[in-house]
């Protein structure tokens, strides 16, 4: 048995359940840390977990493919979770109806702004054209953003990275920005967070309360549609 210990790591590394378990443990710890450090904004469970896992993979020389063999089981649940957003959304339907036209106008303005600001700033700072294309749909939920970029000939996996970074940024900083601007109503906070930082912003909004979460889900869903309409049109105008 002892002589087999040397090969144990290589065995674990190829085991999907090892990466699945490690992801869950790290997320559990990160959530605990986030709770303990009450309100310290950089202690975001998603950001901390991703950073930790990237460091683990990097320093153990593990391929993303090997990690994905375990991680995909968690990733799969993202699809039914997106469908599940319909339930809190339905429960808020009267509030949504009462402010439908402000919501739709904000959607149009916010979606355009999210695309233009990231491409504009990236261009000013000298990002390459392929990076700019990957930045454009960054506020849309990952599968939509990846689909848009793929159709226009960009790099889908880079888009996924940028989208997640946008979500974590929104989850960490959006509550602070909205506080500074004195925007207190859960519906408004949630809608802005979901529109700009999709599912990760929505998860953060649910931590504030259910109403913010429902409006965030609405913002996310509507902006997925808006971004997939806007980006191809704007791309044809620019390129």
């Amino acid at each position, binding site marked *: 048995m002892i002589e087999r210990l040397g090969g144990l790591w290589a065995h674990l590394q190829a085991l999907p359940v090892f990466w699945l378990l490690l992801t869950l443990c790290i997320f559990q710890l990160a959530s605990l840390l986030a709770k303990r450090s009450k309100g310290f904004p950089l202690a975001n469970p*998603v950001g901390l977990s991703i950073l930790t896992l990237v460091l683990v993979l990097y320093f153990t020389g593990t391929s993303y493919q090997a990690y994905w063999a375990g991680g995909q089981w968690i990733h799969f649940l993202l699809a039914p979770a997106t469908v*599940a957003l319909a339930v809190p959304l339905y429960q808020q339907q009267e509030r949504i109806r009462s402010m439908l036209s402000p919501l739709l106008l904000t959607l149009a303005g916010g979606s355009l702004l999210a695309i233009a600001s990231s491409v504009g700033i990236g261009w000013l700072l000298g990002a390459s054209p392929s990076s700019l294309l990957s930045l454009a749909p960054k506020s849309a939920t990952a599968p939509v953003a990846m689909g848009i970029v793929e159709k226009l000939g960009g790099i889908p996996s880079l888009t996924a*990275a940028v989208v997640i970074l946008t979500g974590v940024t929104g989850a960490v900083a959006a509550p602070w920005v*909205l506080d500074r601007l004195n925007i207190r109503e859960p519906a*408004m906070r949630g809608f802005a967070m979901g529109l700009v930082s999709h599912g990760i912003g929505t998860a953060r909004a649910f931590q504030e309360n259910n109403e913010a979460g429902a409006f965030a889900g609405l913002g996310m869903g509507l902006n997925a*549609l808006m971004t*997939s309409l806007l980006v191809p049109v704007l791309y044809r105008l620019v390129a």
Partner: protein
Amino acid sequence: MLSGFLVLLAFLLAGDIAGYLFALPLPGPVLGMALLLGWLAWRRRPPPENLRTASMGILQYLSLLFVPAGVGVILHLERLQREWPAILGAVLAGTLISVGLSGLLLKALRAKREAQHD
């Protein structure tokens, strides 16, 4: 819980099928959300208990579900090394500006509308 989860998967599948048949630019899960919302609205009754349990159960862990895809950043370390100021700057500043202005826009539009109604 299981029966509620079954409903979620059924609508997920329905969303995928609708997207395929009508060649829609939206992914299956987003279409599935729209279809489930339509069904709930059509029933005109509160969502079934099992669906509510399953939905709230899974949504409680929504942020965990993004972790594996996020770890994919590791595939782009080289590009990020080369272009990190531009990419990071665009994401950080772009996100903060968009969140702030979207919030302000919604607040202003709401206030204007309420003033009209008075």
